[in-house]
């Protein structure tokens, strides 16, 4: 049987076939669907951990005790998990550990671009890179075999374009890989597992030796292959860039790498010997190119292709033509220009509780140190009520620093509930401990909305669909020692504004939990509101809340009934009482 699967579905299927029995992750585009899908297979355990480092430690524990573990994360998640990546490289484990890391060239859904192949070299662990869904499926088993044979974690690198593209996968596979013959058990072996300096010094040579053995393996593994072609150009390529390169250089000789660290020096030399010119095609950094040049081979790469953004076939073709690697078309069709049209930026959903919070913050002219999630959309005009946003968990430390340096402004931190559980708790303790004065607002919609509504410790259920205890953020703050803690419904506009003002005036550090369940998750819908144009004085308030159903029309505004979900916030902030529920006479009812 054949089935069309996304890269992420194929990773999940491959993990199931490989006999992975414990999987842990924190969501992050484009990696999230791997665990979403994996958790649906029978007989497996999967969880949303509170952050990537916790997820990796969970996977490591399972692998220490002889299990087969999978941990997934987006590229920036690896920054969070990096501390654990480095110790597991030293200790190794009894079972198997596969980490799927999803890079996001072009930042379709990320705060920065980073090339996480560097982590493989940095932490001295092998890295595989599949190029389509079938390879994604196979890569998990291949990674697990390397992990168990060489006593090393193995990273599989994917990118947005692989994770979110669909291609045909063979589903008549061998049944699920045999589980390990030995029963799971933790073997006490401090020299291997306790990384005090004396023992860590013994492990480092083991790691270096392992890398040498992996480099030998890289020469013969089926993951790397030379695809014969003409003797003009030899292309070295991996991942989805291979697919683009195949279209642009149909006749070239290829070294197609399925394992990008350590690199196969022998195969690279063999390719260079066969062709007049070696060209390395890789998205983001010149990771392979630098290695090839260090070998003394004058490869071309980043002098031709950009180190910013993702590739596509048209881009590669234009670059290759400009560099004279391929000839330009004889009859060039006139280039079609892309028209200037109104954009369609993402907005807070109709009925989203974050809107009430940010409109209130805008009204009190707060200086807002933000964080990452749906609520980052509060930075966009016309709300324009967020002034910094760097990485997950940054807001609370940043606001504390701004306050400590002595800025006299209405400073607050705004952080989402999932982000708070991810990396907000330690900075909140810091704020309290160091006699801070800042106000922290948790935008609590009870779910990890941005990445597609994954459960979190505030939701009351787990990835496996099992009921779970709810962590209450206000109680947590009181437990730390905060005295000034309020829970407010952000759509209760007056209370929201008054509470923010009260907290801003206070000298003590404080917490506001702005709580309103995510509308997309709850899917509640009330009757759409209507506008009474006779009462409307065109003040424009309702247009400033950035709600897509509200449209400017001749003499006022109108509300698109198909899009409105009836939350009523526009009616709350309308000074004229011009917005309300429809009554029978065709007017409005307040």
């Amino acid at each position, binding site marked *: 049987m054949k089935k069309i699967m996304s890269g992420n579905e194929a990773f999940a299927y491959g993990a199931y076939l490989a006999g992975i029995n414990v999987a842990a992750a924190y969501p992050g585009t484009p990696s999230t669907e791997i665990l979403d899908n994996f958790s649906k297979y029978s007989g497996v355990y999967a969880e949303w951990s509170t952050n990537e480092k916790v997820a990796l430690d969970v996977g490591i524990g399972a692998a220490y005790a002889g299990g087969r573990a999978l941990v997934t994360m987006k590229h920036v998640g690896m920054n969070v998990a990096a501390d654990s990546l480095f110790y597991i490289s030293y200790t190794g484990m009894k079972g198997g550990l596969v980490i799927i890391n999803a890079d996001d060239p072009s930042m*379709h859904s990320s705060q920065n671009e980073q090339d996480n192949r560097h982590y493989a070299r940095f932490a001295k662990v092998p890295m595989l890179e599949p190029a389509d869904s079938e390879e994604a499926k196979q890569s998990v088993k291949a990674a697990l075999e390397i992990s168990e044979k060489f006593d090393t974690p193995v990273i599989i690198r994917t990118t947005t374009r692989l994770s*979110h*593209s669909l291609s045909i996968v063979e589903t008549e596979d061998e049944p699920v890989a045999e589980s390990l013959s030995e029963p799971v058990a933790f073997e006490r072996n401090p020299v291997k597992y306790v990384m005090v300096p004396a023992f860590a010094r013994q492990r480092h040579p083991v790691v270096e030796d392992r890398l040498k053995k992996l480099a030998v393996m890289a020469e013969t593994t089926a993951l790397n292959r030379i695809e014969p072609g003409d003797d003009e150009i030899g292309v070295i390529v991996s991942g989805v860039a291979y*697919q683009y390169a195949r279209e642009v250089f149909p006749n070239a000789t290829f070294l197609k790498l399925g394992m990008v660290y350590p690199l196969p020096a022998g195969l690279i030399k063999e390719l260079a010997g066969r062709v007049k010119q070696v060209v390395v095609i890789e998205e983001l950094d010149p990771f392979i190119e630098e290695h090839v040049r260090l070998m003394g081979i004058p490869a071309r790469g980043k002098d031709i292709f950009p180190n910013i953004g993702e590739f596509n076939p048209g881009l590669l073709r234009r670059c290759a033509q400009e560099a004279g690697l391929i000839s330009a078309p004889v009859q060039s069709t006139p280039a*079609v220009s*892309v*028209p200037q049209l*109104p954009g369609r*930026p993402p907005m807070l959903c109709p009925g989203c509780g974050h809107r009430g919070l940010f409109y209130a913050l805008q009204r009190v002219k707060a200086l807002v140190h933000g964080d990452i999630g749906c609520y980052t959309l509060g930075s966009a005009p016309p709300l324009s009520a967020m002034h910094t946003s760097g990485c997950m968990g940054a807001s609370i430390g940043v606001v504390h620093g701004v306050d400590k340096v002595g800025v006299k402004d209405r400073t607050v931190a705004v952080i989402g509930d999932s982000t708070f559980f991810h990396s907000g708790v330690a900075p909140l303790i810091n704020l309290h401990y160091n006699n801070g004065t800042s106000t922290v607002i948790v935008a609590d919609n009870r779910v990890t909305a941005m990445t597609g509504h994954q459960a979190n410790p505030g939701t009351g259920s787990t990835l496996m669909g099992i009921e779970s205890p709810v962590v209450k953020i206000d109680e947590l703050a009181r437990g730390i020692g905060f005295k000034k803690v309020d829970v407010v419904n952000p759509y209760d506009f007056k209370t929201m504004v008054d509470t923010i003002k009260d907290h801003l005036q206070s000298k003590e550090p404080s917490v506001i939990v702005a709580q309103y369940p995510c509308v997309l998750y709850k899917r509640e819908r009330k009757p759409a509101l209507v506008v009474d144009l006779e009462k409307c004085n065109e003040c424009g308030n309702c247009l400033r809340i*950035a709600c897509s159903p509200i449209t400017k029309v001749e003499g006022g505004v109108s509300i698109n009934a198909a899009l409105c979900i009836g939350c009523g916030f526009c009616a709350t902030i309308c000074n004229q009482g011009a917005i309300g529920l429809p009554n029978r006479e065709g007017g409005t009812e307040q």
Partner: protein
Amino acid sequence: MRKKLDFLFAGVGGQGTILASNIVSEVGMRCGYDVKKSEVHGMSQRGGAVESHVRWAEKVYSPLIEEGNADFLLAFEMLEAARWPHFLAPGSVALVNIHQVMPPSVNLGQEKYPEEKEIESILTGAGDRVIWLEGAAKAVELGNHPTLAGVVLLGVLSTRLDEPAETWLRAVEDLVPAKFKELNVKAFWAGREMAAGS
């Protein structure tokens, strides 16, 4: 079998763009083509645009269509249709649903939504012709399920290709949620009738 067929889909979140492109992928596979599909939908639930590429050929490498190569544009929203002229191949056909979803800058009165004529000239500057389709109106008539317009457009598309209607129908039935099967089958036939009339 044709040498290759490239389909570009454009719409806004909630219009069934992804479902429609999944159905076209499935039909391709069932007819013996190699198939790849790629999409960007990160922000679709929050009102953003959705774009999807589907490719059929004996062997497909790139999941992305190269500019100037799309044989069909299926657009579920008029402004979204106008964004992609540079992808259209000479001789290509754009099937455009007559439906407008206003972007924020238009709602706020800062920018103008392009006229139908303007969109038509943008697209015919690159491709061969634009076929305007009352998919949204048909969807309302059939029961107003938001993704029906997409399946109406697939009905139209199916008449322009060689694959049997049976194969399309099976794929529609297998991919739509079970409780909306009948409605979607009706929408598919409505599209075929619409094509016969145009």
